[in-house]
């Protein structure tokens, strides 16, 4: 591994925090890969709807795999060894960060987004699964490369410490990570196949109704009952929550579906498999349907449509998304993934 210099660190602006952090960290260590490739290699695409787990009082819904899953899986498949450390002492956590920075090592951190002052106020909820890179320190400020913002920013030690020790679900516990062994020119062929198969399994082979394609159908069936079960107001808030998970927090659009399509396109080129290009187009069309779902939901939220027909329409679109994703994964299997 070459000896790094913090001024070499290049900030790249990406859709998603976890994949974006990795692109920036790997790039610093001489491996340049795209965000969609890392997202795909980390089997980031997923769906689950878990109404019995509440996040800020709302049913847990996710369009991606569990936090740090992308980091762990993509690094492993690329043969990159990551050091991942957690702390129970704030002072030690900050000292360990400073020590790495002094050695010229940019460090990935998990952080609570609520405490980060450069994040626009509208996005500052208690969400603890955010990721960023700290790549230097001077004049009592940390240099922060947050992949979901346009430019590098600075952050005071106090704010950064609060974010690292945010509490509640997914509490980061001071978690930091960085590559310790980066092999030059990893062999992507087997890694890509493994990642696609893993994604397909998680989307179609979990025998529970809350996960994968069945999870989308489950949500579709539930959504129609929301106004009756929870009342109009609560139903609208729950619907707003789904849209936020799908579109707001760094998904690249359509709940990571477009990023997955971009990944398949790259994989098609690398593996010279035209079938993947065709499947990528299907994923794009599926993503477009998810965007229509968001538009249809927005009409309900703005009371521009009668709720009964609005929720029925939302259900129909979701059912269509589920059918499309079922077809996508069947096609992937036929293509040998």
């Amino acid at each position: 591994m070459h000896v790094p210099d913090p001024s070499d660190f290049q900030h790249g602006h990406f859709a998603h925090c976890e994949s974006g952090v990795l692109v920036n960290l790997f790039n610093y260590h001489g491996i340049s890969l795209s965000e969609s490739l890392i997202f795909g290699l980390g089997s980031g695409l997923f769906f689950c709807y878990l109404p019995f787990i509440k996040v800020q009082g709302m049913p847990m819904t996710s369009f991606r795999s569990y936090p740090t899953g992308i980091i762990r899986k993509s690094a492993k498949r690329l043969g990159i060894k990551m050091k991942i450390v957690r702390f129970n002492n704030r002072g030690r956590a900050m000292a360990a960060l400073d020590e790495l920075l002094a050695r010229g090592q940019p460090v990935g951190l998990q952080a609570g987004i609520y405490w980060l002052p450069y994040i626009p106020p509208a996005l500052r909820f208690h969400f603890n699964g955010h990721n960023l890179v700290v790549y230097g320190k001077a004049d009592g400020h940390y240099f922060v490369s947050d992949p979901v913002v346009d430019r590098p920013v600075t952050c005071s030690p106090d704010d950064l410490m609060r974010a690292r020790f945010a509490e509640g679900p997914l509490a980061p516990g001071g978690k930091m990570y960085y590559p310790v062994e980066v092999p030059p020119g990893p062999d992507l062929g087997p890694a890509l196949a493994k990642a696609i198969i893993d994604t397909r399994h998680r989307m179609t082979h979990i025998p529970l109704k809350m996960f994968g394609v069945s999870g989308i159908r489950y949500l579709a069936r539930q959504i129609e009952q929301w106004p009756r079960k929870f009342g109009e107001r609560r139903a609208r808030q729950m619907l707003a929550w789904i849209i936020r998970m799908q579109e707001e927090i760094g998904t690249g659009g359509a709940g990571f579906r477009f990023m997955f399509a971009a990944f398949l396109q790259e994989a098609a080129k690398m593996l010279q498999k035209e079938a993947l290009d065709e499947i990528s187009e299907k994923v794009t069309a599926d993503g477009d349907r998810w965007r229509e779902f968001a538009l249809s939901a927005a009409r309900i939220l703005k009371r521009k449509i009668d709720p009964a027909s609005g929720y029925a329409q939302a259900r129909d679109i979701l059912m269509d998304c589920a059918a499309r994703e079922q077809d996508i994964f069947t096609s992937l299997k036929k293509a040998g993934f």
Partner: protein
Amino acid sequence: MNRKNVPQDKGLFGPWHGINYAVDDHGRYTKVPSAGWAPQSIANELSWEPFREAAEQAGREFKNGRKSPLAYYMACHLMDAALLARYVGLPAWRVKRHLRPDIFRKLKPGLIRRYAEVFGMDTDELKRGPSAPEGPLPIRQES
């Protein structure tokens, strides 16, 4: 989504942009910055509603002496007693008791300081409470 259709409805991101993945005219994927999208903004706005209402109510209850200032600042930071309890390392039932003005007034300075530290504020300010509690949420922003 074609890159020409990437929405640019200014909204949540302030000075920043979100990245969208979209295809060019040849069907190749590219990264396109987006200033925001209306459905995104509508959904986000609606999500703030319950928090805003909780903060306003806590402000009113502080004003008419039914709740402690702690209850108000807790609500302003979008927390409930359970989350605040994790931050100060106390059981939630104790934090709930501290939301009562009579009990809050008798708290030891050390405990007040722990609460004040969570909110990044002065202990006197926390003890005094807000002067204009119905105002916007005093979340710390980049100065």
